[in-house]
């Protein structure tokens, strides 16, 4: 559904004529006339208002009774009064009523000082209470989940959290139990509320009933400072507000930006901030001496690194992962290209695309925005699951389906979390997204021969592809294709990119509201590439004279001894690259491995020779590029950590500073003395960033595809569809061999591994298979199984999912142990090893707690009187 047109009308509020958009709710329309109507339950982000709290009562002329301002749409000529005695009486009565059972423990309550109930009581309440009877008492506080504590005495039953669970994240776990004054919020089955987005209810709660356990009793609102920045833990790049006290980050809250995150955060973004202050942080330069990493000073480490790089020259290589800022990537590629005459740079785990294709995919006309996901007529989810790859897109797609009548079309190998919301679901074989695109292209160009061939190569049928296309195109022309960078992984990446561009071309996705949206693998994957950190192109997709090796080539050359020095910028190849074994050999045979890393990971501990301490995102300054082309700014919230009792500057240093110091030692002076100077150089070097300033980017970011400079840089491009060949068919499962697909769980990251509160979510290896196959192999849910081929084995707990197609298994990759980044798509053997393996009782990937024994106390309803001061506490 395209964006609705706004029709401005005039209405009167408190005797003033005010212009407001027609059908806006009175509460919102009143703000156009600087009138504040108090609310508790109303929250526009949650969709349709419910009018549960009655705080927003107003008087409307012509209607005898008071009306709720949050659920009454404003009409032309409406006359509204908010300051009459009747309204004031009603407001005072509502506040008094809400406070009847609300305990007066504001000094102890974490919400005290930033509590809407406090504010509204002061502003609109009666000032005194007439209530002398005993209040309602509950056991307090209880663990609603490992992340959230619930204090049911404080709840005012506004339904916000329940609505979030039912209508936004659609995990349907929270409900209100019992009736009337006995109502309380709980999960429907008494299990912990575990889902990917639970933390949002803490922020939604207008009282202190839902409290984040990581922030519990840490600070009061007057102790803290807010610092706006951008989360770099996944490609969604949500805008966040960090709560800082004593130079420590204590909390992450959403900094609403409709264009990026719609005001929501996932639990990883909200709670994995703990990785900033853990013992695993690397806080000073390290060097390997006699096989052990020992602290050294910066001069020693920089000199050693400069010497290693200088000696290697063109035999050096660098790999960057997503959280690298544009500036770091830009400076490092300058150092490599200008000083070392070396183009072995890679930020794509799957390998780089040829320049015309990389450029074609970045064409500003083809770029969809994040809000387009919501307002499009149809969205094709192409072989990715946003819940794992970029979780906040998942909420956006749900919103589109629920509120904007968007057609969601899913074509993926692995069952996605959005299947239930989709109009059509097509399951293709793992690793055959390209074949599916070829089939779509054939269907669009009426090429019956190719259609049948490609569809069967994808493990599907021509009819299924036709149906999918019908649902995709029937509603209208605004179509968005959401795909993952994984599409281009492997040797047939360029062909897949051709096929995608063909389909985009035939669907005519160049218009406003339509386009392609890529989810990169790294958080800033797009920005790093646009800053020129790629084997095939320089800054702004400029052609380079001597293209270097891509990821796979670097690994092979290192293993064979053709390359000697490797610079790892915020990346862990053993964990994130597809061929773990090759990388193991590559890192072992490399002469010098320079790791620029913030956390002591297994790879750093075993393979790094020189370690530069890296910044956490709260310490960084620089720019990022969102998957939809929005250039966003990272702002420094806290100082760099320094080892105890050492002088400032001896600890972590800014990434741009380390790289430019290194360049200086190699005889190349960037002339960069501040982070902003690096940004300026970047904006000058990338044609479509030209003229950009940090001020212009500001807190909300700027989409570069929408800027004039982008049009100048790319010009009017028109692309003719090219002839595609049908890719090789997917492996066929046989009696004893199953197709294998991989996925990277949302929680598989080094930040989650070290965050104490997220330990429950740390992923373990699971082997997802269909119940039919499970029966055939005699495997029960939770059994320990092993999958493998050609001597490569992965062990994990079997998980039976009805949605997994027969003959296919899925294993997680990117885990700290038992990584499955070993399989290229093909078939594997499955073997049962034994009874149920030890596994976390909660599976955050699916969002539903497993039924059975739970280590967390399920919330039990106990209505009882307890004298003040003796109420049982948490953990009791």
């Amino acid at each position, binding site marked *: 559904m395209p964006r609705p047109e706004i029709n401005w009308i005039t209405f009167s509020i408190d005797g003033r004529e005010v212009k407001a958009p027609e059908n806006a709710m009175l509460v919102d329309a009143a703000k156009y006339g600087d009138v504040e109507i108090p609310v508790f339950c109303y929250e526009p982000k949650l969709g349709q208002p419910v009018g549960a709290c009655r705080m927003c009562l107003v008087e409307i002329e012509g209607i005898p009774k008071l009306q709720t301002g949050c659920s009454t749409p404003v009409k032309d000529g409406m006359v509204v009064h908010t300051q009459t005695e009747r309204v004031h009486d009603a407001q005072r009565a509502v506040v008094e009523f809400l406070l009847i059972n609300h305990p007066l423990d504001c*000094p102890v309550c974490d919400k005290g000082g930033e509590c809407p109930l406090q504010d509204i009581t002061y502003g609109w309440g009666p000032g005194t209470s007439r209530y002398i009877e005993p209040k309602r008492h509950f056991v307090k506080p209880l663990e609603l989940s490992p992340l959230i504590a619930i204090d049911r005495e404080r709840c005012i039953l506004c339904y916000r959290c329940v609505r979030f669970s039912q209508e936004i994240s659609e995990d349907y776990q929270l409900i209100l139990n019992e009736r009337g004054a006995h109502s309380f919020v709980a999960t429907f089955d008494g299990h912990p509320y575990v889902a990917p987005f639970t933390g949002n209810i803490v922020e939604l709660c207008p009282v202190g009933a839902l409290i984040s356990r990581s922030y519990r009793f840490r600070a009061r609102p007057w*102790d803290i400072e807010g610092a706006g920045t951008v989360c770099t833990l996944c490609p969604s790049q949500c805008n966040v507000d960090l709560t800082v006290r004593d130079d420590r980050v204590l909390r992450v809250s959403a900094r609403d930006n409709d264009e990026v995150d719609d005001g929501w955060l996932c639990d990883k973004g909200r709670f994995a901030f703990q990785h900033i202050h853990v013992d695993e942080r690397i806080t000073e330069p390290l060097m390997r001496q006699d096989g052990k990493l020992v602290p050294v000073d910066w001069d020693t480490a920089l000199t050693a690194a400069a010497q290693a790089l200088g000696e290697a020259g063109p035999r050096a290589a660098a790999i960057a992962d997503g959280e690298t800022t544009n500036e770091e990537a830009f400076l490092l590629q300058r150092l490599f290209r200008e000083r070392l005459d070396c183009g072995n740079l890679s930020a794509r785990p799957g390998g780089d695309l040829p320049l015309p294709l990389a450029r074609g995919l970045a064409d500003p006309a083809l770029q969809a925005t994040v809000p387009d996901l919501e307002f499009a007529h149809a969205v094709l989810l192409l072989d990715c699951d946003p819940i794992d790859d970029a979780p906040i897109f998942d909420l956006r797609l749900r919103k589109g389906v629920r509120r904007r009548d968007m057609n969601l079309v899913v074509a993926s190998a692995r069952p996605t979390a959005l299947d239930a919301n989709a109009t059509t679901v097509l399951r293709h074989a793992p690793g055959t997204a390209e074949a599916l695109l070829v089939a779509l292209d054939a269907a669009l160009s009426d090429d019956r021969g190719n259609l049948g061939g490609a569809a069967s190569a994808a493990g599907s049928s021509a009819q299924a592809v036709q149906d999918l296309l019908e649902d995709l195109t029937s509603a209208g022309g605004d179509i968005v294709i959401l795909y993952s960078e994984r599409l281009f992984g492997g040797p047939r990446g360029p062909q897949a990119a051709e096929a995608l561009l063909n389909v985009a071309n035939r669907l005519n996705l160049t218009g406003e509201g339509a386009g392609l949206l890529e989810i990169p693998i790294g958080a800033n994957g797009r920005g790093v590439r646009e800053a020129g950190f790629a084997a095939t192109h320089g800054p702004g997709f400029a052609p380079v004279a001597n293209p270097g090796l891509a990821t796979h080539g670097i690994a092979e050359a290192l293993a064979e001894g053709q390359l000697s020095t490797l610079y790892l910028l915020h990346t862990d190849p053993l964990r994130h690259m597809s061929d773990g074994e090759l990388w193991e050999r590559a890192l072992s045979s490399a002469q010098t491995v320079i790791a620029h890393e913030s956390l002591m990971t297994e790879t750093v501990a075993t393979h790094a020779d020189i370690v530069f301490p890296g910044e956490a995102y709260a310490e960084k300054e620089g720019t990022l590029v969102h998957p939809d082309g929005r250039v966003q700014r990272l702002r420094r919230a806290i100082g760099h950590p320094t080892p105890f009792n050492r002088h400032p500057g001896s600890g972590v240093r800014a990434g741009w500073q380390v790289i430019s110091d290194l360049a200086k030692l190699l005889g190349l002076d960037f002339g960069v003395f501040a982070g902003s100077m690096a940004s300026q150089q970047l904006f000058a070097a990338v044609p479509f960033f030209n003229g950009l300033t940090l001020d212009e980017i500001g807190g909300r970011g700027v989409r570069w595809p929408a800027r004039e400079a982008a049009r100048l840089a790319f010009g009017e491009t028109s692309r003719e569809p090219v002839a595609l060949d049908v890719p090789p068919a997917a492996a066929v499962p046989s009696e004893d061999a199953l197709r294998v697909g991989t996925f990277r769980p949302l929680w598989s990251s080094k930040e989650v591994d070290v965050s104490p509160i997220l330990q429950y979510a740390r992923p373990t290896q699971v082997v997802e298979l269909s119940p039919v196959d499970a029966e055939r192999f005699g495997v029960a849910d939770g059994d320990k199984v092993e999958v493998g081929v050609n001597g490569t084995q992965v062990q994990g707990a079997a998980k039976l999912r009805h949605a997994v197609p027969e003959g296919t298994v899925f294993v997680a990759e990117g885990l700290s142990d038992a990584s499955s980044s070993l399989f290229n798509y093909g078939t594997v053997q499955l073997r049962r090893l034994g009874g149920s393996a030890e596994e976390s009782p909660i599976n955050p990937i699916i969002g539903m707690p497993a039924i059975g024994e739970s280590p967390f106390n399920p919330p039990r309803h106990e209505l009882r009187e307890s004298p003040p001061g003796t109420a049982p506490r948490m953990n009791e």
Partner: protein
Amino acid sequence: MPYNPGDDVVLVQRGPSPGGAGGAYRAFGETLRGLKQTFQRLTEGTKTIQYPEEKVPVYPRFRGRHKLHRFEDTGLEKCVGCSLCAAACPVDCIRVVADENTPENRVSAGERYAAVYEINMSRCIFCGYCEIACPFDAITLGHDYELSDYNRSDLIFTKEMLMAEPLDRTPLRTAGE
């Protein structure tokens, strides 16, 4: 040519010259009046207070060094670490870091307690706002004013110091004194 002031000359009007009885009074009268005070005090004896051996008693509402209190019956701390004192403090000299009570380690009566409670005495202006802000009467300003030290960092009083009774009690003025 010598300077000729001409019309610039201003004549100064002088008072009558001192002398006679008036002059004598002015010379000795005031001195005797001052000496009258001197002789009066001579008869009273010394009034010097031999500080620090002797101390001036303070009034009951004198605002001196802070005290944190416990419940007399249970021995639990009254302070729940709510930080309202820090919010009220006009010079920002109070720092509170709260923590959660557990059944094994119950410090205060509420859910939370002050794990860190520090007052920077070199910055405190003894206005008493913290006492007014405290919802649990956990902090009061006592009578001790001897707070000087050799080191600035020693003037940051910790919770243990604020909980403890002062070594020497400051004498309190009795009613009518």
